[in-house]
């Protein structure tokens, strides 16, 4: 495999792999870093030995081990008992339930967390593009015509809020599902309209954003089949 092919597969699988890693390690930043580590290994391994049978499960397992490595390094640096407890828990958890059902649930959790109403609409869109669609921070910044530094700051604060405010990583239960689903659809619609009729920038249309919106809507439709509103 060429690095370009590896990158394409990684891009297709990264969202779901990240969603599961976040649930396993309980931390957005740690999961993102671990997935990047796994990608580095994939570039080397897949180019030489070819694609594993289930690339997504491979990424989750390697990412999980990389996360454990990172926590271990942290423990060595700071000797924190709390971190150590987390590492033990992580080690004890089953290597990875690879059924597609579980991975799909994780993806839904990720979408609902990114579109939580305690974020401003703009932040919901940015978090979704970065985390669910797997755009780079630079690409998200371009969508908002913001500088990369400013966007990195905004995303950092949002991820801090997830941790500090205890925003849950789960699909809301039945009572709250309707309004929350409307919120998710509003985010997808915002991404689409920005692509269809860009409010700022030189281009009249931003097919890249419209494409991400359609991809998101298809994904949501596949994850929650039979819902008329999607």
């Amino acid at each position, binding site marked *: 495999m060429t690095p370009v092919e590896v990158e394409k597969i990684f891009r297709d699988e990264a969202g779901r792999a990240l969603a599961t890693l976040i649930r396993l390690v309980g931390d957005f930043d740690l999961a993102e870093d671990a997935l990047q580590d796994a990608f580095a290994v994939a570039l080397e391994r897949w180019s030489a030995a070819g694609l594993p049978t289930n690339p997504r499960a491979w990424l989750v397992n390697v990412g999980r081990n990389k996360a454990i490595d990172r926590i271990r390094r942290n423990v060595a640096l700071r000797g*924190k008992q*709390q971190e150590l407890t987390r590492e033990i828990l992580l080690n004890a958890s089953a290597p990875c339930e690879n059924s597609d059902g579980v991975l799909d649930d994780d993806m839904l959790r990720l979408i609902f967390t990114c579109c*939580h109403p*305690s974020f401003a609409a703009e932040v919901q869109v940015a978090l979704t593009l970065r985390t669910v669609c797997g755009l780079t921070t630079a690409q998200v910044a371009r969508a908002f015509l913001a500088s990369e530094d400013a966007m990195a700051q905004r995303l950092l604060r949002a991820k801090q809020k997830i941790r*500090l*405010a*205890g*925003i*849950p990583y789960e699909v*809301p239960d039945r009572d*709250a599902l309707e309004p929350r689903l409307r919120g998710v659809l509003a985010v997808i619609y915002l991404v689409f309209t920005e692509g269809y009729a860009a409010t700022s920038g030189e281009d009249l249309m931003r097919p890249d954003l419209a494409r991400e919106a359609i991809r998101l809507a298809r994904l949501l439709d596949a994850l929650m089949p039979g819902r008329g509103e999607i």
Partner: protein
Amino acid sequence: MQYLLLIYRNDAEYGKMDPAERKQMSAEYGVFTQAIVQSGHFKAGDGLQPTTTATTVRVRDGKMLTTDGPFAETREQLGGYYLVEAKDLDTALGLAARIPGAKSGSIEVRPVMIYD
């Protein structure tokens, strides 16, 4: 996690409530407080006297400055609070929505800082 649910209301409108309305409201607060004590969410909670009774203290260059009134003049004022234990933000938001004052005022939900 612990969350502080800050109850904001308009002091002027609150002052204009007639005795029957006031009684009704305090009965609703009683029911709500009982419910969250029983569900194990309740940690603490109090109502506050209106901002006309407030005094604000600042220390500048080692000197204490005292002014009358609240920290900031706003349309709604802090009228009371609950400190609750909740597993996540959604649970805390659900509790906040059940506070009787949420129907006329606003509830600000703030996670309590943990020192490790």
